[in-house]
């Protein structure tokens, strides 16, 4: 009995200790949560004005390495990122840095990681993303890059649209690295020759549809290859069709929130005609890579894509520009360059403000833009770059870019509409326009999505 009770009191002691530890533990974790909340409040405050980044500037004595997140992991993207890092190391041999590629899901994984880190007030030094309306979703967590733009004189050397689209709420939030073009039509030369189609003569969407018909009757090839395991390819095809068939103003009205229903519907009708009759049977189970492969292997005549597709052509063996594949501005949109930017965004509450400034200045420099873009298959956003390092296709693209009458922002890659609208547009494509193609429902869905 005594033995028993003796043991008991010891037990009780253990109990008390355990309980105390637990209470302490709970207290700690409670504190931790509270701190986190406070921290993100601080981030908010910082981004509303210059105070936050100024304060950060002063405190950059920490040995934190520069950390840059990007999503260029596949094929030419990885090579381009590598070239960028090399050029950066040449410029800043002593700066510690981490370039972290987060690939997969067409930037979805990168976006998720960035969103989480910004949400937890643990921003990287900089991350790759699109400027334009896309900046809206980072409301409150982006700092200012005004000093970089000013010090480097970017406003004078970047194309005017870049200057405009990298500002949000009255300040520069990002620096452009390169630009892709979206209103592109690529073709396999031997297939179009076999069909007797002259791509350069296709200057309207109806001419394109006639050409597709010719290809389908004259050859065994697929007239137009399309990979739609994701909806984005269809959304961007619609955007190019809208621009090519209806013209610049209706396209811009759509993006700016006052769409013309007849124009939207007419663009959808053309896209439906193409998708119903002239694309590959397995479109819904393949993506961009396989779709591109159809052009490379001569199984298809045409493909609509941004000119990142050209990167795949360049990497293919024995597949040369002008001989094996060709480029045509998307029919009807001649003289226009549908814009896309790859940019580095500047998070507020920056862990390494000074290093980030240096990196941003570097990203907009000629050295960086040449190093990156020649591998990425895009072109510099600066107008004063020597293009001799680039291949003939990109040189032509750069000329088009410089001479374009209009450079409308794209619909699917962040510049034209904010990310929520873009997501709604893709919902509409997914539910109404990925076979069967319901023109009316898709039209009203698109109009509802963008209307203010």
């Amino acid at each position: 009995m005594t033995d028993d009770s003796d043991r008991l009191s010891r037990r009780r002691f253990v109990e008390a200790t355990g309980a105390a530890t637990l209470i302490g533990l709970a207290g700690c974790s409670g504190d931790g949560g509270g701190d986190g909340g406070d921290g993100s409040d601080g981030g908010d405050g910082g981004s509303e004005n210059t105070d936050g980044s100024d304060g950060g500037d002063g405190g950059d004595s920490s040995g934190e390495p520069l950390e840059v997140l990007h999503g260029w992991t596949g094929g030419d993207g990885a090579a381009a990122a590598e070239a960028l890092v090399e050029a950066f190391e040449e410029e800043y041999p002593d700066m510690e840095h981490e370039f972290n590629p987060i690939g997969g899901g067409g930037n979805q994984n990168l976006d998720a990681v960035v969103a989480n880190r910004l949400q937890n007030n643990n921003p990287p030094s900089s991350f790759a993303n699109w400027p334009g309306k896309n900046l809206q979703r980072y409301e409150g967590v982006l700092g200012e890059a005004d000093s970089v733009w000013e010090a480097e004189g970017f406003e004078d050397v970047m194309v005017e649209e870049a200057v405009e689209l990298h500002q949000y709420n009255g300040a520069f939030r990002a620096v452009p690295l390169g630009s892709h073009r979206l209103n592109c039509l690529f073709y396999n030369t031997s297939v179009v020759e076999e069909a007797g189609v002259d791509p350069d003569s296709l200057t309207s969407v109806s001419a394109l549809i006639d050409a597709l018909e010719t290809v389908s009757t004259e050859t065994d090839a697929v007239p137009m290859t399309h990979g739609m395991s994701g909806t984005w390819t269809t959304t961007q095809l619609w955007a190019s069709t809208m621009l090519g068939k209806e013209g610049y103003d209706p396209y811009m009205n759509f993006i700016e929130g006052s769409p013309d229903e007849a124009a939207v519907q007419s663009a959808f009708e053309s896209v439906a005609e193409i998708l119903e009759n002239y694309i590959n049977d397995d479109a819904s189970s393949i993506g961009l890579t396989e779709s591109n492969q159809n052009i490379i292997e001569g199984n298809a005549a045409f493909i609509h894509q941004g000119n990142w597709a050209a990167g795949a052509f360049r990497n293919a063996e024995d597949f040369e520009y002008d001989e094996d594949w060709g480029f045509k501005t998307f029919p009807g949109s001649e003289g226009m360059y549908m814009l896309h930017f790859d940019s580095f965004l500047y998070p507020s509450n920056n862990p390494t403000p000074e290093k980030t400034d240096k990196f941003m200045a570097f990203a907009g420099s000629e050295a960086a833009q040449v190093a990156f873009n020649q591998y990425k298959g895009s072109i510099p956003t600066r107008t004063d770059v020597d293009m001799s390092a680039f291949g003939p296709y990109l040189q032509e693209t750069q000329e088009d870019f410089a001479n374009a009458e209009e450079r409308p922002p794209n619909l699917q890659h962040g510049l034209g509409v904010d990310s929520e609208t873009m997501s709604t547009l893709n919902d509409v494509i997914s539910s109404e326009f990925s076979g069967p193609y319901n023109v009316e429902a898709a039209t009203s869905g698109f109009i509802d999505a963008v209307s203010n």
Partner: protein
Amino acid sequence: MALHNDDTEESGDAVTDGGVVEEQQQTGFRPIARLNERFGSDFVESSQFWLPPFLLVGLFVYGAIIWNVMISLTDFQGFGTPDYSDLDLEMYARALGDSGFVDAAVNTFVLLIAFTLVTLAIGLGLAILIDRNIRFENTFRTIYLLPMSLSFVVTAQFWAWMYNFNNGVINIVLTSIGLDRVDWIGSPDIVLWAVVFALMWQFAGYAMVVYLAGLRAIPDEHYEAAKVDGASTLRMYWRVIIPQLKGSTISASVVLMVFALKAFDFLYSLVGGYRPPNGADILATKMVREAYANLNWAYSSAIAIMLFLMALSIVGPYLYYQYKEGHL
């Protein structure tokens, strides 16, 4: 047990002053004694073992769930901190008015029911066949169970290739026997069934193992008695054996249903993104899309809570059943 004193009835007046009352011998510490009286003899003494995990789980699981409920009542989106001062059910109303949500909920439900039923049926069939003293029994068992050991990421890629319209093995087989190709992934009416089939392939082995264990637990006498009474094999299974597999069925179906709710991984890997093919969107993919693509934290929390309630409505009755049967 001796510590369980009888003087608790006398202690009607509150003694929860928290002071350390050191009473010697068999009376014990009164509040502790009362707790023990209320919850079982070792309630306090054993607390050092169950209390830490209890609190940790409480904080990180149930605390997180409650937090999630709170967020779903706010209008939190984008970056910053949620505003807890204005709580309402707006996000739930929005979900009910969102055709995308309704479609996803219906798909989730169909997937859940169809997948569970089909998998149980196939699993039972396999278990009965294997239980009939066939040769290479272990080999077959391993073969059937193997798909379950593979990750969704791997199996989704398998099936994406097999379902390919032009060169997928399924369509090649169909055309070689004179049938038309089927657009498994691309047609919204079929894709969900294609997903159900792929998941069934992966989990039928699991249902088989559970049923096999159930079958092995049935005494041979039952088979013999049925035989002696002149029952055909079919009748014997239908009337005698399968009714005894109720427990196996329930536990297997709970696990399968929970797997079905988690089909996110499979759909994500199938298309390499948060947006499954048209016709196969489920609540889990919709939730992740709303959260990370659109930063609609409150809305996606609301979807998460509804998904949680669905899971609870499955697991809840099971736990209650187990409790009633005395297994808990």
